[in-house]
């Protein structure tokens, strides 16, 4: 391959401060309206933490951002491009599967259940998409994958299969796997909820250093201390709507709605 880094996002005009913008996002599953008009903007380099009761639509919203779910109303753009569509003149053309796949390389996602590929080693999990999707040279992909494994403290586990790793180790490999695509934004859906308590810290630590390195992140979590320490913005969702939004200190210490107060009293 002559061009080893076609994944790098196109040059972004400096005047566009928002990496992700959601406008009036509506999502229904059958007759159930799960998202009832979500408006959000995530600034470059910022960490937005989303909290809210179970079933309030947090996971669904994250899955709408990388279009694992299609919308029933509104739109979401990443790096100024509307997800799922190509703008030409004043028309929007729906993307083909291959085009959508390419668009998804801008967003990295980390799942509650890790979802590492069970038939591949940690290293192969990380190199698979860069090699197959971006056409990266195999050796270079391996070198990068090893470097990424080192940043999450797992360089010695490169040849282990997922089943041979602890939950915390699997989740750190999953973070490295998403980072290998050099996304513009990282989406975390309750990355520590499936972990034993003593393993939560290592994953939060990796996420904290990622935030400090300037990555744009949207994190759904129940870890309020992470929200307070690492988050730049805290969003509270309830029943498909955003009911609070502000700096973590503001929102946690002075919630304006009764629902949010109630929710915080339960999770603290």
């Amino acid at each position: 391959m002559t061009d080893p880094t076609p994944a790098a996002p196109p040059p972004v005009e400096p005047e566009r401060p928002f990496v992700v913008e959601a406008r009036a996002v509506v999502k229904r599953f059958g007759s159930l309206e799960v998202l009832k008009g979500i408006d959000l903007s995530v600034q470059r380099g910022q960490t937005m933490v989303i909290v809210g009761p179970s079933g309030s639509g947090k996971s669904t919203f994250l899955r709408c951002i990388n279009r694992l779910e299609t919308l029933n109303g509104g739109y979401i753009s990443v790096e100024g491009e509307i997800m799922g569509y190509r703008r030409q003149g004043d028309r929007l053309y729906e993307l083909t599967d291959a085009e959508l796949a390419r668009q998804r390389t801008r967003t990295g996602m980390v799942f509650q259940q890790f979802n590492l590929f069970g038939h591949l080693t940690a290293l192969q999990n990380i190199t698979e998409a860069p090699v197959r999707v971006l056409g990266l040279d195999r050796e270079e992909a391996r070198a990068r994958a090893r470097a990424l494994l080192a940043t999450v403290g797992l360089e010695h586990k490169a040849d282990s299969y997922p089943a041979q790793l602890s939950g915390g180790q699997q989740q750190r490999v999953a973070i490295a796997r998403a980072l290998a695509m050099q996304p513009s934004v990282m989406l975390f859906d309750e990355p520590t909820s499936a972990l034993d308590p003593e393993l939560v810290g290592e994953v939060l630590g990796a996420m904290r250093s990622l935030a400090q390195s300037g990555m744009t992140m949207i994190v759904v979590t129940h870890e309020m201390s992470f929200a307070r320490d690492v988050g730049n913005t805290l969003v509270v969702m309830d029943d498909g709507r955003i009911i609070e939004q502000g700096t973590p200190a503001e929102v946690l210490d002075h919630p304006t709605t009764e629902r949010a107060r109630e929710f915080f009293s339960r999770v603290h």
Partner: protein
Amino acid sequence: MVVVPVRHYGRAVAGAAVLLVLLGLVLSVARNENLDFAVVAENMFEPVVLGGVGLTLLLTFISMAVGILIGVIAAIARLSPNPVLRSVSAGYVWFFRGTPVLVQLIFWFNIGIIFPRLGIGIPFTDVTFWSVPINDVITPLNAAILGLGLNSGAYIAEIIRAGILSVSKGQVDAAYALGMSRRLTMRRIVLPQSVPIVIPPLSNEFIGMLKYSALASVIAVQELLGSVENIYSRNLRVLELLIVASIWYLIITTFFTFAQRLLERRFSRGRAMVGAAGGVRA
């Protein structure tokens, strides 16, 4: 203290009765004046019989390969978002599972009656660029491969479909989230992980195919059964030669049952990944 275990008198009596019946059967066959085991021994390694064994293996392997190819395509079509592909695949499975394989074999063997020539041309016109008599292409062996392959493809499609569905949704989500297309996800993530699931039923299908291939003898294929028929139609030693064929079938199926165990063990170890430094490679 002496411990007296429960005595299973009923079991002992039933066991003895069954053994007696078996012994009687074996003796009546072995001491039967009308069966000549010398003929069995003579014909075990007859060149015609050995050729039949070879053809049975060839027919089974090629038909199985055709079946797997068709089965994978039909399974993927069945799961595709395209309603036309889905229906065609479902219709294929419905038809080929719903009609006897013997009927299908005879049908392909006689295809020349309705389509005398096979060619390339422009559909719905009389323009033909190239054509051959169909009986040059659909030889008895090819008719058998077509019939057995298409038939087993319908069963294999269901096996592969179940294998694909057994791979968790999370694996697919993760692949899509990384920017892998549907096709790439199927090829690199889903199909490899369904391999350990489909190996046991595919092995059964293979052993079944070894025996179904005997049906090809009715359309003049000289596989194992056809070759012994050939001999007994001349010397009239029908049962002796059927015993020869049966012994060969048992040898072959025993061998492949053993191979199946090895294959399953290898893949089940891969799934558990116990100490698998380089364990699975799919």
